[in-house]
């Protein structure tokens, strides 16, 4: 059955496709000829996607390993960490009398800071959106490549160099930046305030400015491609939800990252040129700073004006991927397609007017918080709609419970669990008690950390055949899934309780406070599962690289029986994506189990009397 359909499709594209004369102009493309231009300085969106993915994976391992190290300090403060001294050197301080090695507090904070920066920006922004926007936007829209392949290549290389600079900063003798990933001044502005605020902070800023450039180059490309390079018949309302998500994500990035950059530039001026945008009435290291008149809160506004959209930049692509994976493997149309699109737009819009909910306790006028509470809690409505629609997509389906599907289901569970705690935190009155406690740590790790990772994993397992022409191993995939969902909940669920007990985040040790030190058992439990969770991710890494060369081969073009256009391209990926003409689109992407047909790809013309889009 499947083979017959594929055959018909080929004829369809050949006879009725859209001829853009691409191959007449691009034969013997010089950029595809040698190794360097094919794999390193590639302008092909499919290669760039893999570059983003693998770079992101390397950063994910580094970022996660950091969290394991600081979790060991928190979970087992009595145990000696001398054994990692060969790796960390002077950052492990060995007590000469007892011989017990401990993480130095400065480096603990450096690890916490780097963990956040790396995972938020390098893994969940570049690694997630960079990978799948690049891979899927041209393929699912029926485009030959991005609007500007050259800018696309630059986008990757700016990201790469941002990573190089950040990596270099890990080896400074004063340590990398250690003031938290939000980098609030004056701590981040004054080298005398913390050892990491010296060269470490300078490199952090350089790295992130490079990163902003990368995001902007990528974002401009994604938006242009979505608006201009859709194939014939691909109206906006026929685009798969993945594309809608990437599209809105790119707009968010384009509008918010420059604001972050402006904040960073002012911070650079405060640090190096003697300005005082963020500094006022400071007495530090025995001296009064002669610069006055600035406001540290201004930086927080600029930071969170990016920072809040940023969490949607992370979660929207994951939502898009999950919507697609759920629909394909449930063999059912996504429920409420239009409601899903409007929810994405609503979330995208609202994300720009809620930033100060991170600042209820930061000294802004309490009256101002009223507005931010209202807008913040409105976001719960489109989010709830999305959750209900995902669940209804499963209702009455014919589910294949394979690894991508399991991760998609896991995503929905994580998004519910983490999303609901947002309702507590978004209410400023409750936030008085919960702000900057472990409750917040639990909330954002579940809703945008773990959930986004689940979306990413669902995407990787699902589109792996498209990337490498082979499948990832299912058994290892399931070990990965079950290990991850169990340990992720085991890590973050207990943090709600410590948070509700008032334990503040970013504490190197809880011993000095009577109120905070009675959770040693929970902290041990969390640390043990953090280690397990890290180990389970290695199963994924092994599976990923092993399958590139030895995975089960893809034998038909459309192994999942999916409707979107990427599955009409040849198994062996080619420059320009389609060998001849481009497919012409006749319907939306979700005609699953319709009129006795299990799936009807987008380029199949409507039968007589058939109602098209829904």
């Amino acid at each position, binding site marked *: 059955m499947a083979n017959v359909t594929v055959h018909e499709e080929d004829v369809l594209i050949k006879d009725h496709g859209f001829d853009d004369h691409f191959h007449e102009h691009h034969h013997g493309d010089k950029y595809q000829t040698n190794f360097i231009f094919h794999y390193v300085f590639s302008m092909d969106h499919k290669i760039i996607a893999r570059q983003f993915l693998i770079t992101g994976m390397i950063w994910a391992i580094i970022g996660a390993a950091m969290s394991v190290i600081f979790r060991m300090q928190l979970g087992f403060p009595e145990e000696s960490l001398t054994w990692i001294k060969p790796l960390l050197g002077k950052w492990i301080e060995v007590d000469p009398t007892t011989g017990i090695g401990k993480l130095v507090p400065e480096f603990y904070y450096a690890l916490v800071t780097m963990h956040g920066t790396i995972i938020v920006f390098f893994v969940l922004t570049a690694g997630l959106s960079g990978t799948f926007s690049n891979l899927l936007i041209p393929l699912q829209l029926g485009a030959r490549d991005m609007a500007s392949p050259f800018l696309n290549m630059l986008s990757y290389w700016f990201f790469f160099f941002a990573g190089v600079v950040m990596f270099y900063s890990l080896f400074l003798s004063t340590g990398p930046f250690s003031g938290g990933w939000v980098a609030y001044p004056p701590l981040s502005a004054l080298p005398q305030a913390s050892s990491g605020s010296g060269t470490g902070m300078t490199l952090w800023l350089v790295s992130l400015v490079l990163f902003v450039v990368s995001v902007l180059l990528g974002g401009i490309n994604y938006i242009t491609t979505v608006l201009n390079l859709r194939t014939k018949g691909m109206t906006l309302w026929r685009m798969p939800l993945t594309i809608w998500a990437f599209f809105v994500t790119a707009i968010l990035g384009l509008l918010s990252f420059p604001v972050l950059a402006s904040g960073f530039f002012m911070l650079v001026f405060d640090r190096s040129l003697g300005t005082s945008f963020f500094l006022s009435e400071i007495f*530090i290291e025995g001296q009064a700073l002669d610069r006055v008149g600035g406001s540290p809160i201004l930086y927080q506004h600029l930071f969170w004006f990016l920072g809040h959209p940023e969490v949607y930049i992370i979660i929207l692509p994951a939502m898009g991927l999950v919507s697609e994976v759920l629909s394909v493997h449930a063999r059912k149309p996504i429920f409420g397609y239009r409601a899903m699109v409007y929810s994405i737009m609503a979330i995208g819009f609202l994300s720009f007017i809620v930033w100060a909910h991170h600042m209820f306790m930061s000294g802004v006028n309490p009256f101002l918080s009223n507005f931010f*509470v209202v807008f913040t809690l409105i976001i719960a409505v489109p989010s709830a709609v999305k959750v209900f629609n995902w669940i209804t997509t499963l209702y009455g389906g014919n589910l294949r419970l394979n690894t991508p599907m399991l991760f998609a289901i896991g995503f929905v569970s994580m998004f519910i669990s983490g999303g609901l705690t947002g309702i507590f935190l978004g*209410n400023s009155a409750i936030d008085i008690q919960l702000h900057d406690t472990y409750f917040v740590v639990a909330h954002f790790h579940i809703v945008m950390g773990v959930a986004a990772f689940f979306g990413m994993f669902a995407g990787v397992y699902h589109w792996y055949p498209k990337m490498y022409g082979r499948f990832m191993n299912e058994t290892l995939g399931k070990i990965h899934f079950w290990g991850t969902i169990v340990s992720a909940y085991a890590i973050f669920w207990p943090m709600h309780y410590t948070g509700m007990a008032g334990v503040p985040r970013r504490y190197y040790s809880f011993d000095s406070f009577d109120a905070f030190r009675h959770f040693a058992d929970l902290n041990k439990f969390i640390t043990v599962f953090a280690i397990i969770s890290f180990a389970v991710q290695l199963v994924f890494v092994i599976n990923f690289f092993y399958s590139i060369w030895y995975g089960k081969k893809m034998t038909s073009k459309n192994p999942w029986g999916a409707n979107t256009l990427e599955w009409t391209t040849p198994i062996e990926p080619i420059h320009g994506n389609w060998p001849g003409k481009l497919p012409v689109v006749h319907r939306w992407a979700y005609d699953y189990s319709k009129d006795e047909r299990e799936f009807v790809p987008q380029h199949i013309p409507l039968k007589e009397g058939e109602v098209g889009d829904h």
Partner: protein
Amino acid sequence: MIYFIAFAIVFLLAVIIVQIGKITEIASRIRGEEEVEIQNNTTQGKWLLAFMAIFLSGTIYSAYYYKNSMLGYGPLTSASEHGFELDSLFNVTLFFTGIVFVITHILLFWYSYKYRKQRDTKAVFFAHDTKLEMIWTAVPAVVMTYLVASGLVAWNSIFPTLTEEDKYLEIEATGYQFAWDIRYPGEDGKLGRKDFRLIDLANNSLGIDFNDPNANDDIVLGGTDKIILPVDSTIKVRITSKDVLHNFYLPHFRVKMDAVPGLPTSFIFKPVKTTKEFREQLRQYPEWQVPADPDDPNGPQRWETFEYELACAELCGKGHYSMRRIIEVVSREEYAAWMAGQKSFYSTNINPEPAAAVKDTTVADTTASAALDTASVK
């Protein structure tokens, strides 16, 4: 050598993992892909159901198990007036979100199991249903409106605007790396001006401006002294910072506000239980009737050593986790007596001579609670 062994172990594990993966591929080749897929769907479906059962009961059981250590439950009720409001808001929110959490999880995992692909099963084409979607847009909207409304009412009552007529005690907390300085207004009930340019670490670490007459009777607590506060009195804490951001955090009082250099912030609260009363409250609970120091079984019990604490809740550098101060809430009479024993900063650090004179008059006038009402508490 150790690294070599570690590397060998990792390598061996990788090989084992790959081999585990291969087994199933071989199995599926023997039994046919369709057969394996269907069996897999049933296994995974059951696993999802089992996970749901364990997860949901685990969350409920663990919440119950830890309830006495969480604020607002068991012994740790609020020690301030506004805190009760927050705790009840928290519970209302927990009620609604709890219902949603359980129902959505049951549906999610139950559907995943029920609608798994089996032999000859088919999916239905069910793309949208306007009525259904209207309902589940409207219901969360209504619930949210309720939560927002009650949240904002509470929020705005917690941040009132105090006028001259209101009686309150204004104290000042100044954060710096890595401790707090606490200043009391003294007899006049007014905190004097300060200026960071006047800071002199040896003699005037807060930079109090003694050209301001209000500053002369200000009292500054030493680095580790307990912060003494009167019960049932409105207290306005003016929160400032000398260097970087800090956060004035009193977990038991549900008080939290950033200390921002150059921009004084404030928080108003009213303690409703003295430290002694709170200890008595804790005493009822078995987990507080254990020795405070496990190594000293005959020492004081946990409830006896309980203290209200001040912590920092905004990352401020390497010593962030150590900015502890003890707060002791006492009766108004005890407070007045304690206050009477304090000497002004001016008299002890700046100009020790006339100190005695100022002191004497204060003591003479003091009839315990009267002093509180007229002087310290405006």
